[in-house]
């Protein structure tokens, strides 16, 4: 039923600049894919090429194996939702939604039926007679979506679909769109610069920069295993710690043990996300709490030792329970991360160091999982990552372990 999109070797030069550089991408039937990247990364251009609103210098775009580049946009069967909706201001909501059917000379009765069904779908049953100017941003967005769906497109494309909305509306619409996609199962690609949005909505996230695809995969896979520093930084904050790998140990240049690594040797940078840093109050610890910012559910804690400062984040409840305060001494444990640089060709996973006299309870389990990696499947990977996160979370729970002892 659903259409598979294949993109091969897509190139586009504009004013002497490479806008798209050899793009290869396959979007599976029924998949919801996000093109994620900073502005100027080429993501909107790529979307417009799939739609037919822009043409590549060379390369191929295929729907279910059929080359669509030769076809004009209006014959590709693509539903497109524009960033600013592009609703026809002189038409009512109902006529906007029915436009694609009206130009296809569908009988009026059929159009009315379809429009009322779509109005129901987007939960705007009573607004069919209004003009776009009389609607809120979120309502306009849904009208634009209904209009795009009216032509029963093979492929749905959305350009920054929530960019122009305020935070609360954006969150609600995101969830609603996710549900809608699950029901309709139409192959969908959307463009965003917001990694949170990409992660919450998409089955697959395609990270772009400088006209190239840097990495593509399930959100969790990207977050846990970024292939390069750009992807790592773009997908969320990370502490960057200069370090080197020696005999399976990762040692910070500032002179302390960060953790272990199963391969690689030489210099690099360890990328550790704030939530991968666990803290335990200990006046004899090497670290001091430099800064404490309590904000809502999560608190941020800046910790420092000579020549190095890190940022950790933890649930505010935990921060309270631990009695964290600026100036107090703490122990820091790095529960995970990636090392990238000269040490190895590919990023190396940073494993937790055995903690002094108590080896980590979870250590063996992680090792076992790592070894299963060759038989890679996305579902398995997601499950594995989930279990790893759970073990990391429990490994952070010093107090409970203390009790258990």
């Amino acid at each position, binding site marked *: 039923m659903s259409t598979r999109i294949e993109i091969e070797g897509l190139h586009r030069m504009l004013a002497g600049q490479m806008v798209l550089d050899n793009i290869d991408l396959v979007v599976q039937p029924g998949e919801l894919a996000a093109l994620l990247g900073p502005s100027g990364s080429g993501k909107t251009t790529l979307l417009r090429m799939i739609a037919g609103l822009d043409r590549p210098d060379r390369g191929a775009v295929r729907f279910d194996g059929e080359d669509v580049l030769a076809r004009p946009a209006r014959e590709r069967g693509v539903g497109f939702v524009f960033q600013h909706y592009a609703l026809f201001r002189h038409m009512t909501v109902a006529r906007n939604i029915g*436009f694609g059917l009206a130009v296809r000379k569908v009988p009026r009765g059929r159009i009315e039926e379809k429009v009322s069904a779509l109005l129901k779908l987007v939960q705007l049953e009573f607004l069919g007679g209004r003009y776009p*100017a009389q609607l809120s941003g979120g309502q306009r967005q849904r009208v634009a979506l209904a209009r795009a769906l009216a032509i029963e497109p093979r492929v749905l494309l959305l350009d920054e679909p929530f960019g122009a909305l305020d935070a609360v509306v954006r969150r609600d619409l995101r969830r609603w769109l996710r549900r809608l996609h699950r029901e309709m199962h139409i192959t969908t690609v959307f463009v965003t610069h917001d990694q949170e949005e990409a992660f919450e909505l998409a089955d697959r996230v395609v990270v772009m920069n400088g006209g190239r695809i840097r990495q593509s995969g399930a959100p969790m896979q990207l977050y846990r295993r970024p292939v390069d520093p750009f992807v790592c930084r773009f997908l969320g904050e990370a502490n960057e710690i200069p370090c080197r790998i020696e005999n399976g140990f990762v040692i910070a240049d500032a002179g302390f043990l960060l953790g272990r690594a199963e391969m690689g040797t030489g210099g690099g940078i360890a990328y550790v996300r704030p939530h991968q840093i666990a803290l335990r109050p200990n006046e004899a610890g090497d670290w001091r709490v430099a800064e404490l910012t309590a904000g809502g559910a999560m608190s941020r804690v800046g910790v420092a030792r000579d020549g190095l400062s890190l940022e950790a984040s933890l649930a505010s409840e935990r921060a309270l329970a631990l009695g964290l305060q600026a100036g107090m001494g703490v122990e820091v444990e790095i529960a995970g991360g990636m090392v990238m640089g000269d040490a190895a060709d590919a990023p190396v996973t940073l494993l937790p160091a055995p903690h002094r006299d108590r080896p980590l309870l979870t250590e063996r389990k992680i090792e076992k999982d790592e070894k299963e990696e060759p038989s890679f499947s996305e579902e398995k990977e997601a499950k594995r990552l989930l279990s790893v996160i759970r073990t990391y979370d429990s490994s952070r729970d010093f107090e409970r372990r203390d009790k258990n002892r």
Partner: protein
Amino acid sequence: MESGRWMGRRGAWREPSVLPGFAPSLAATLLWLGLLVAAPLAVMLATAAGLGWSGFWALVLKPRVLGDLSVSVSSALAASAIDVVFGLVIAWVLARYRFAGRRAIDALIDLPFALPTAVAGIALATIYAKEGPIGAVLAPFGVAVAYTRAGIVVALMFVGLPFIVRTLEPVIAELEAEQEEAAEMLGASGTATFLRVLLPPLAPALLTGFALALARALGEYGSVIFIAGNKPMVSEILPLLIVTELEQFDVPGAVAIATLMLAASFLLLLSVHGIEAWVRRRHGG
């Protein structure tokens, strides 16, 4: 209920406003319009009223007057209608595209505003005469422009064009290109996109431009008399007849015809504005 006093003043002739300066600026407006517009018209109407109904109709209901009125109105309508079509194309090109020579064309548009109309009339007559560069091309086909009604239309098109272009240009510039792309994505052909998506938002501006060009064309004199044949009831416009009557010191006749002309123009413009208001309302502002 402090505000009740204000809300109760619905019947007042002026909406309450915090903006100062209403009284002096309204006074200036009335004074200025009175001196410049209303006073001369009032004098004319008063003179016409002095003729009495029967006297007025006797002066106006003459074949030559009615024939010239029909020449004036039909030429003005035709010229404005043609201007709407080509004005739309020109405004589209100027608003949408950037090309070498665009500024020169842009300046050229305003020329009919600035040129003494007699100069334009003489120039047009020269070009379209049988010996002129365009007239010579048309002559073998049996088409004569200068000294015919076609000449009147050409002159009126010349003076009316800038009104259409200048009215449409900013409105076209404001249309989002995304709307056309949206129509294309929904499967609309170029024609359907133009007729259903682009034209409706332009309709009010098109009508405004049409009304302005029509107003100008109805009142135009200088450029027309040089190119029109000025043959009564065929290629003579009503303003020329007024001048002719005046030259023969027939002031009552001139005033009666002028009043007729005023009434006809006023009714025409009123109906165009009526249509325009209706279109605007229909498109939800």
